[in-house]
């Protein structure tokens, strides 16, 4: 049989109305307030690292062409320029998101007979790009053949190949070593983050249709040009081959063998064209201020800062090769006598994986000149002097072994006993360590009450009733905790003169001989019920889990030499229930309606804790805010107690010792405090939802089927993204919450959004204190939202043509299908201001799932 499927989808572009952002006119009003407070002086705007409309304005004022200055330096001309910018209202989403169609073609073939069966498929996926910066093309091939060599012997071979070529905006995977709680001011060209966080007073094109630039990293910047000049190309080739055989030497016994190998090569190339903002930044050396402050210039021992890349671009590549092998031998035995039946299944598996990755940075390549290369030796001086590597090589080897066995006994299908045991070993924790082998086991019993004779009178309407009970252990090792033995790191000491540098070996991890695996014991009681011949069926599981020796990265006194160590730090208990209900509400010849409802609930408490979390762990919601008798990873907040008479936020600090300088109620927070934080932090809730539920309704009428799927998660609290920036400028964007900010004395009675600090406040309090105050505000109770949501996840409609119509067209089957994914959020907390509660903690690297419409056609011959 031959089947062809074509699926095409359209992703909807996000819009500002979803997110409660201020438009350009309101934003300009805020900029005017900042201007009056001392921001945007000509010096800062012209020569500073970043700048928006004000830097554009001053550049015009400063530039002299044949017929005069770009903009006269009069009050009216400046006001007119800024007024014009306030009307731009640029819709960055419109410029960046393409709303293009993706297409996926797939073709599959299956045939077979007595002696063999084969299935083959190929598919091709083409995505011209959700944004102008992205593209994906993917080809997949799959071939599976089974051969029945004898009634007792079957052999299968399987081959899969996968090729992908992808284009993505250039990103710099640099790790910033920030103080806890500080505001992250990363510059990101990720399309969604860019569109949402770029001022709408700026625009990509000017009146003449040319690119318009603003200032970033001491150089001109235009996002559309940047997407063309600064991009990554990713190429993946992935092959998988496996061979398996099943043999029944005697009746009741089956042996099988599986061999599997996989090879994948991933290459990621980052192209930085010579007209990208990044490289213009490397060349920004006009003027004293730029030369003094531009970090991208090379500063030799003596003399002026120099440009290390006078022309051409940069090519950075990283590639990874993976080879993995797996072998598994298993045994299956079944035997029956009288009413008894036993089954035994066991297997042994060996897995090997070798990964080799390398990176390389090439400076000075002319992409427009047949990729000719010319590198300045200063590049090497700068790279080496700053302790950076210009290439790297890493090898990673994983070896795992698993032994497993399971035994089932049942009597007349009424009483069933099941035992499972598993023993896994891996090399993850090092040579000769104590935590190599992880045990897992489970014992379960099941009683099919409906098979009992006394149940007969009920069987008419109650066709299934079984009770289950099980108890088992699962052991898990945290892959980052490699410190069962000491781990060393070899580096060059970082000294000014390269000739002074020596090799040094640093202890990366001290030995932790107490390290053991995380253990979870689970006791589960459940029941399965069905009524009216499976018209209504449901299952309910109630469980109690006790986890011991949880592993995490924990802060110590530092006296041992390692400040934060991976260790077993605590125990936890969780009780919960899972419920699933499946009903066939209407069951007629032409029309049916099914509902499936799933519901999960749990309650969790930490029962033992070795360490005390820092204030930052507690307010950031990073999963480390652990306090006894509360769930793991709780979210806490600073207690904001209104604004001062200058509009600054002030907080309650409990027992925390504060300095006596007069600003301690405003800026006295200590994110590293572990001793007093329980006395002044407020508990908001857990970071993980404790109720998860989904509801699916399917309707069928003749060839039509309609399905509606809702999901919901309830109970978690999320922190809204920090938006109060201690260092505002004319690139900041503001949500509509800012309408309620403190403006004049007296506002502190009614408002709780702090003032935008003027330079008078900076000189009074000191910049570090202002930063501390705003960072604390970002982690206070006004910046928490409920993460609960109810979402319509998908709505789909399909039609299968009747057999008669297909046969007329000489086909075996034809069907059409349309689906809307993520149509809308039925409920989410308004405080999130449009941010998706499902994605708010994911680090924000990719766009949230947009609303997607897709259509597909499937034909089979």
């Amino acid at each position, binding site marked *: 049989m031959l089947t062809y499927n074509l699926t095409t989808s359209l992703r909807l572009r996000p819009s500002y109305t979803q997110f409660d952002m201020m438009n350009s006119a309101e934003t300009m009003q805020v900029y005017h307030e900042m201007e009056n407070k001392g921001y945007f002086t000509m010096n800062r705007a012209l020569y500073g690292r970043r700048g928006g409309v004000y830097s554009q304005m001053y550049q015009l004022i400063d530039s002299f062409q044949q017929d005069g200055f770009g903009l006269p330096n009069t009050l009216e001309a400046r006001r007119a320029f800024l007024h014009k910018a306030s009307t731009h209202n640029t819709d960055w989403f419109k410029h960046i998101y393409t709303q293009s169609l993706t297409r996926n073609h797939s073709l599959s073939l299956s045939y077979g007979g007595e002696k063999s069966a084969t299935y083959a498929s190929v598919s091709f996926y083409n995505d011209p790009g959700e944004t102008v910066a992205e593209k994906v093309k993917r080809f997949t091939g799959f071939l599976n053949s089974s051969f029945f060599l004898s009634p007792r012997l079957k052999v299968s071979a399987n081959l899969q190949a996968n090729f992908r070529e992808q284009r993505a905006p250039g990103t710099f995977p640099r790790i910033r070593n920030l103080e806890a709680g500080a505001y992250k001011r990363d510059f990101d060209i990720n399309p969604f983050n860019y569109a949402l966080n770029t001022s709408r007073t700026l625009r990509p094109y000017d009146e003449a249709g040319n690119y318009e630039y603003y200032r970033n990293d001491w150089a001109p910047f235009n996002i559309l040009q940047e997407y063309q000049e600064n991009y990554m190309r990713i190429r993946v080739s992935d092959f998988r081959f496996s061979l398996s055989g099943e043999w029944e030497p005697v009746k009741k016994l089956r042996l099988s063998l599986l061999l599997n190998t996989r090879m994948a090569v991933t290459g990621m190339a980052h192209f930085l064209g010579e007209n990208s903002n990044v490289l213009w930044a490397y060349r920004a050396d006009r003027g004293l201020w730029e030369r003094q402050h531009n970090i991208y210039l090379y500063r030799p021992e003596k003399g002026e800062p120099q440009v290390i890349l006078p022309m051409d671009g940069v090519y950075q590549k990283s590639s990874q090769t993976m080879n993995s092998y797996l072998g598994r031998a298993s045994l299956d035995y079944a035997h029956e006598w009288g009413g008894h039946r036993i089954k035994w299944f066991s297997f042994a598996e060996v897995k090997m994986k070798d990964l080799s990755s390398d990176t390389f940075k090439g400076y000075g390549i002319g992409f427009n000149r047949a990729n000719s290369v010319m590198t300045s030796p200063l590049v090497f001086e700068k790279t080496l002097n700053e*302790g950076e590597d210009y290439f790297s090589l890493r090898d990673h080897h994983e070896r795992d072994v698993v032994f497993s066995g399971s035994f089932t006994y049942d009597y007349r299908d009424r009483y069933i006993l099941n035992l499972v045991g598993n023993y896994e070993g891996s090399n993850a924790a090092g040579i000769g360590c104590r935590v190599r082998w992880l045990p897992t086991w489970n014992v379960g019993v099941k009683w099919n009450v409906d098979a009992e004779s006394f149940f007969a009178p009920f069987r008419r309407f109650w066709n299934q009733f079984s009770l289950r009970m099980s108890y088992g252990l699962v052991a898990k090792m945290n892959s980052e905790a490699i410190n069962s033995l000491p781990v*060393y790191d070899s580096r060059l000491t970082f000294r000014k003169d390269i000739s002074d540098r*020596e090799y*040094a*070996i640093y202890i990366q991890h001290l030995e*932790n001989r107490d390290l053991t695996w995380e253990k979870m014991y689970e006791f589960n009681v459940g029941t399965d019920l069905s009524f009216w011949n499976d018209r209504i069926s449901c299952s309910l599981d109630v469980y109690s889990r006790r986890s011991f020796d949880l592993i995490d990265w924990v802060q110590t006194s530092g006296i041992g030499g390692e400040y934060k160590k991976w260790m077993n730090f605590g125990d936890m208990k969780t009780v919960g229930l899972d419920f699933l209900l499946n009903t066939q509400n209407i069951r007629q010849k032409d029309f049916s309606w099914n509902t499936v409802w799933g519901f999960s609930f749990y309650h969790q408490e930490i029962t033992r804790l070795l360490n005390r979390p820092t204030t930052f762990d507690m307010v950031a919601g990073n999963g480390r805010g652990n306090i006894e008798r509360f769930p793991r990873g709780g979210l806490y907040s600073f207690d904001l107690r209104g604004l001062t008479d200058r509009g600054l936020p002030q907080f309650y600090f409990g027992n925390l010792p504060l300095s006596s300088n007069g600003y301690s109620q405003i800026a006295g927070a200590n994110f590293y405090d572990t001793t007093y934080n329980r006395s002044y932090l407020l508990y908001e809730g857990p970071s993980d939802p404790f109720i998860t539920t989904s509801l699916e309704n399917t309707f069928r009428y003749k060839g039509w089927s309609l399905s509606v799927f809702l999901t919901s998660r309830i109970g978690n609290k999320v922190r809204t993204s920090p938006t109060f920036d201690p260092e505002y400028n004319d690139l900041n964007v503001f949500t509509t919450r800012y309408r309620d900010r403190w403006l004049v004395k007296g506002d502190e009675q009614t408002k709780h959004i702090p003032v935008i600090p003027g330079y008078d406040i900076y000189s009074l309090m*000191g910049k570090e204190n202002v930063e501390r105050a705003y960072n604390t505000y970002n982690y206070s109770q006004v910046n928490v939202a409920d993460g609960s949501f109810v979402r319509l996840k998908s709505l789909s409609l399909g039609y299968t043509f009747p057999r008669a119509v297909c046969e007329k067209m000489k086909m075996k089957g034809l069907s059409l299908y349309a689906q809307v994914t993520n149509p809308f959020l039925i409920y989410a907390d308004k405080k999130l201001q449009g941010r998706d509660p499902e994605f708010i903690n994911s680090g924000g690297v990719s766009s949230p799932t947009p609303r997607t419409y897709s259509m597909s056609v499937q034909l089979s011959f």
Partner: protein
Amino acid sequence: MEVDSKEKIAQLLTAAYPEASYFRFLELRTDNVDDRSVQLPASRLNEAMFYWNDYHEEELDSPKLYWLDCYRGIAQANQVLELLAAYPDKEDPQLQALYAEAFLVRAYLHFMVANIWAPPFADEETNKGLPGIPYVEKSEKNAWVSYPKENLQDTYRKIERDLSYGLAWVRDEYYEKKKFHFHKKAAYALAVRFFAYTGQWQKVIDYATYVLGNDVKKSILPYQEYKEKSVEEMVEGYASEDNPSNLLITTVESLWEENYKTDRYGLGSVSYEEVFQRFSSKSIRQIEGYFKAVRRLDRTRAYWPKFTHFQSADGLLNERRGQYTKNVLLTTEEVFLHRIEAYAMTGRADLAKDDLITFINQKHIADGIGSELSGTEIENVKPSDRERIQPFYRPLTQEQTGILYYVSEVARQQFIHEGLRWFDLRRFNISVDRNRVGEAKKARYVLQPEDSRKTLSLPEGVTLINP
């Protein structure tokens, strides 16, 4: 990777030296700094240290980071000692050199921690009642280890023990970059500092004599060498390996190079006058070598260019990390000055005065005020100044306190911006008054001679258990 050879063990020791700096947080606590001007930006660290308040943040130059770095180095040294036990041939000179370096590093780091987080050394009876610091002699091998409280006498006994092991076996031949390691002279300089702080004067003289050699004038850097130098050249020379006075140099990640010039709290007009401008003084004469070294940014800000600056790739993204400078930890000048103290304390005041005159002449007395010292300046030291010197081995004669006062004032200028003044304030029980002329006096702005704030409180989150 495995550490399986003597070369690799040596590399473990290279990584044990401090990469955090105490210069900023200790200097801000001394009387070498004042509140320059309200207009200048004040960092939270400097302001807290200036008023002797607790500060528990983990930024560069903070006390906590220095604590963590010292114990990190101690753990490296302990790991080395454990690995060396596998080599049985104790006569092997390379092995002896490794043992010596490990003991010296361990003694040095504990000594620095004790000088910052434990009360000043006093007589034996008093020490037994004072709290010391955790002395770590074995690598930590368990997940969560609690360290017991120790008394100060035990702490210093252990430091002295490790120091003597190190001094017995120290050798230079295996060091490639001598000045970044404890070579013999650096080890002896550490011994001089230790014995001076604990009052063992004869040992100070013995070890100092080895370091300074026969022609003591050649061992320190004379003013002629840096007389006409520009700021860049001075900065280059301060931590240079070619500078004869430098004995132990280290690279630290620190913001001090920027901060000491620009922060609100630092060498300002008042402290500059007090420390460097001694125009009409009959006792402490103005030393041109020091006076000319200091540059003035403007009326309120002065600094002696000492610190170079370089940054790593991390510093490109975040101005608060990845900034490096070089610190000099031990110098021949310090050894010279301690020997002068030792001569004074062992009854050889004449030798003390001679050495003091030699020292200062190298740094050059200002022209026009009388070209050389005669020794009578010691007698001209005012009683009110002299009486501020009250070390634990008092009572002292007038001549002794005069010499000690003179030496401490010279040291104050020599080691400005390096935090060493704090140690002199502690061991001599000198007081500091931050109250400003014309403002209401506050008691907490005065650091008493024996004030609990002379000992920093243990970093936040560190608790020691009762033994």
